[in-house]
């Protein structure tokens, strides 16, 4: 089937098989390899992208379901070449090591800040709790999100 996927503000016509998942379409067909496959079962959040502003696990979403929605991936976070405040805060606070979870973490954090611009530490922990990082202790991620939330 042919889908018109709107990703990071641009519409891409893509030919996909009905069984294809959004993550594979983004990575293999649109060459957006920011979203990662960590578990393929909705647990780790490495594949997090936003669908109309809502975070989802693209590893479990049928690509056809994304048609008609705004898809946002980490590649669209920086605007006009400048890093998003979250991206800067992640670097400054050492909020990642291997960086594999980072595209998902950033999108999750973006969804949080879009909804709650100045979250409390407890809100950050709760909202982000479904995203796994195996390298850091999360402390640095919490600090970074709080920092970016300060504006």
């Amino acid at each position, binding site marked *: 089937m042919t889908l018109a996927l709107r990703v990071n503000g641009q519409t891409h016509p893509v030919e996909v098989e009905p069984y294809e998942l959004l993550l594979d379409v983004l990575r293999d067909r649109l060459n957006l390899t920011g979203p990662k496959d960590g578990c393929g079962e909705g647990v780790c959040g490495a594949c997090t992208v936003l669908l109309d502003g809502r975070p989802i696990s693209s590893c479990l979403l049928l690509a056809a379901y994304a048609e008609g929605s705004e898809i946002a991936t980490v590649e669209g976070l920086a605007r006009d070449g400048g890093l998003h405040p979250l991206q800067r805060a992640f670097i400054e606070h050492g909020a990642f090591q291997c960086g594999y979870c980072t595209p998902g973490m950033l999108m999750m954090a973006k969804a949080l800040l879009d909804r709650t611009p100045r979250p409390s530490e407890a809100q950050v922990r709760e*909202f982000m*709790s*479904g995203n796994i990082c195996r390298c850091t202790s999360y402390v640095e991620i919490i600090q970074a999100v709080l920092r970016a939330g300060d504006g």
Partner: protein
Amino acid sequence: MARFDLSFPETVEEACQALAQDGSDGRIVAGGVALMILVKHGLYRPRRLISLKRIRGLAGVQETEGGGVRLGAMATHHEVELSPVVHRRAPVLAEATAHVANLRIRNMGTLVGDLCHADNHSDPAPVLLVLDARARAVSARGSREVPFAQFFVDTYQTVLAEDELLTEVFIPPAPPRLAGCYVRFSGHSSIDWPTLGAACMLRLGEDARVQEARLALGSVTAVPQRLPEIEAMLVGQALTADLMTEAGRRAARLVDPPADARGSTWYKKRMVEVFVRRALEETLRRARANGVQIP
């Protein structure tokens, strides 16, 4: 991924037709969360999935006349969790759905899909039992209502026939002075599935005696279960600490949870004992906070 076809009927009738035609080759897909995992693990190899996504009228949460709640088959966990109607009319359901998985899954997975999948670790299922909720099942042959008390047959098995789909869930209006809670325990991390979930609703009289009690357990039995014996034991009594402790003890005797990676039978029985009591305590606390005077 394994290969399969995907269709997008636009009405319930079309979906029913498709199900009837495909027989065992076809299957409903709602959010697809549970199904995609099965397919990825090769536990299920579909020929054709029939998506409910484009059917108008299956979305959302509405208040029914008289103060009940209608949940459409495509309402996601997160919609239920945030719905003002649910917060007003069935707050315990909002509480339970907020515990499901993580936000991403709650944005994708539907409440109805969770119930139809019938994993016995479902968080919302015991809550629907204490809410006396019903499901509407529709097929090309017609439509019927099934109370959730009769919905679950076994783990991963419901009363739905191969050609039936569930269009909506009804929660009847709650009687006044009903307080409730859902308590959940995960022995490992709180992000894990529950080891146990306990849903409780109590109606307390002016004299603070229990007029009505509804208790259900999830995760510890093959299907989520009400505990009629415990309910009966509570009705007419004042909720003393001793009574709540005794309720927990008896509840533990009534179940025989299977051992798994989240605990042995012994341990789960102990947790039933603790959490039935804690659910009663919490419900009582809320009832008090809502103004019920306890002498």
